[in-house]
């Protein structure tokens, strides 16, 4: 075929937003390090940077509409401070942030972590905790909202993966 017409994408869809941001960041990273270093630490650092860029661009695409995106943004912001204490501090910070935000909305989040597992905890005890670990910012959410966040998170992750795959395919010879 002579001309390849890609299908028109919705310019404001999640996918396009993420794609633009991510590519921008990627180009920045590439601009910083033109030469490839062979040491594993360098590679690792670069990998971390790229992954962070991906996550950050995804989170920014979602803005702050979702709890997990907020939590992820917090995590990314506090990351340079320290590796080990990041997790706990982000948890605390995200919890506090959410508390302050949700107290205005009359939402009781922090006290629901332990109590909600009581009602449905017979069914969802272990898996809910595991899910909370996976989804960023899921520690201080009841099961109902957790499922909601998980659904959105899965959707965003799939978009992210698709875009990154396509970028990789595009730029591989």
């Amino acid at each position, binding site marked *: 075929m002579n001309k390849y017409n890609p299908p028109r994408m919705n310019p404001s869809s999640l996918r396009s937003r993420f794609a633009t941001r991510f590519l921008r960041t990627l180009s920045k990273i590439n601009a910083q390090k033109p030469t490839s270093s*062979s040491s594993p630490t360098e590679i690792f650092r670069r990998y971390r940077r790229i992954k962070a860029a991906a996550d950050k661009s995804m989170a920014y695409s979602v803005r702050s509409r979702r709890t997990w995106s907020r939590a992820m943004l917090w995590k990314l912001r506090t990351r340079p401070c320290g590796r080990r204490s990041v997790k706990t501090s982000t948890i605390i910070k995200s919890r506090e942030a959410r508390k302050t935000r949700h107290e205005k909305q009359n939402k009781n989040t922090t006290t629901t972590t332990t109590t909600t597992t009581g009602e449905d905890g017979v069914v969802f005890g272990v898996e809910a905790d595991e899910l909370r670990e996976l989804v960023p910012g899921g520690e201080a959410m009841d099961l109902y909202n957790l499922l909601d966040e998980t659904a959105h998170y899965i959707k965003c992750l799939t978009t992210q993966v698709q875009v990154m795959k396509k970028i990789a395919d595009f730029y591989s010879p």
Partner: protein
Amino acid sequence: MQPCSREMQAMNPLLNPAQQLPLQDLQSTAHQQIQNPHFDPTASHDDFLEQMLSPLSSCSWSDLKSPWDPPKSDETGPPNVGFHYDEVLASKLRQHQINGGDGGGVSSPATAAIKMMAQQQMMLPGRGVAGMPLSLGSSGAAGSHHQNDIIYGSSFKSPNQQGGEGSMQSLYNGFSDGSLPGTNQTQHFQHPQAPNFGATAGTVMNQSQASGSMTPAQPKQRVRARRGQATDPHSIAERLRRERIAERMKALQELVPNANKTDKASMLDEIIDYVKFLQLQVKVLSMSRLGGAAAVAPLVAEMPSEGGGDCANGGGSIHRNSNGNQTSADNDSVTVTEHQVAKLMEEDVGSAMQYLQGKGLCLMPISLATAISTATCHSRNPNKGGGSHPLLQSNGEGPSSPSMSVLSVQSATRGNGGLDGSVKDAASVSKP
């Protein structure tokens, strides 16, 4: 009050379902009575009735009154035939008791009984005077309802072949539970059937027993509703919550690919695995940009076919991702690595994977490896003879594109039972 006490004692065995003898006596006497369509006051009848009626005035009226309190309020002429009937009888009895004084006069209970019988015969075709006090007594005994009534039902079944069953039923129904709606009893009135007597009695009994209260019709329906569904707010809230969670689970099911909903727990496990998988894919993809070190974790296979499709027309000029080092694997080192990996896999798969990772390799099935090698060998300049080796393939490329490192181990020979459930025998392929 001695005769009263004596008659109380006589009543007590009547109330006690365990003792059958007085019942049989009653049955015999009732039998005699019932066979006569008209009430003939004989001496035995008098004694019997005296026994039955006089203690009732003293002791069990209160008990008898309680089930019928609401219908007793209107004695004039309610459409509720059953209630009315019972009321009339009871009122007649009471009046007689008041008028006739204590059970001294022999004839007075007989006259009362006659009056009642007349009443009965006016209203119903049949007899049942004997049945009435008996069922009165039976209604007095709330706890022994079941057995008494059924005993009475069965006892009166055979004698009442001629059609008094309807009256018996009505009496029985009316006395046993005043909570039945009048329609039931009218039905029983109109359709007296001998074989159904026991059955209807049983069902009536079951209904009355099941409702668990002798309340009139409206609260009984509320009781019934409570049995089917919870009506208190807590359980309603819980039910709502569960429904909402079920909705969300369904929505998640559509997102997650392997969505055969067996139960919630397994569905949650699937969701968790899928989230892990996606996060891993992001990791792998971000790794692959660097090129070189491919092995993140041999957990998931990225099918090369999925990578096809439109390219993302995302940006302008972007530098090609510079590739990292190439895993240079000579044939010798390949075999060495192979043996190492094989040995490690015997002990522990995890350590084998880590070893591979350290080398910058990963695991994949042979079919995939061959597919990739054939697909990529055309487009690239094969620096090395990649793909020739059946087990280990590593394609090193020039600086233009990151290399794709692949190690495929014959999982079949190794007996891949040790791998986790999520691993199966797949591998992660880092695509350039």
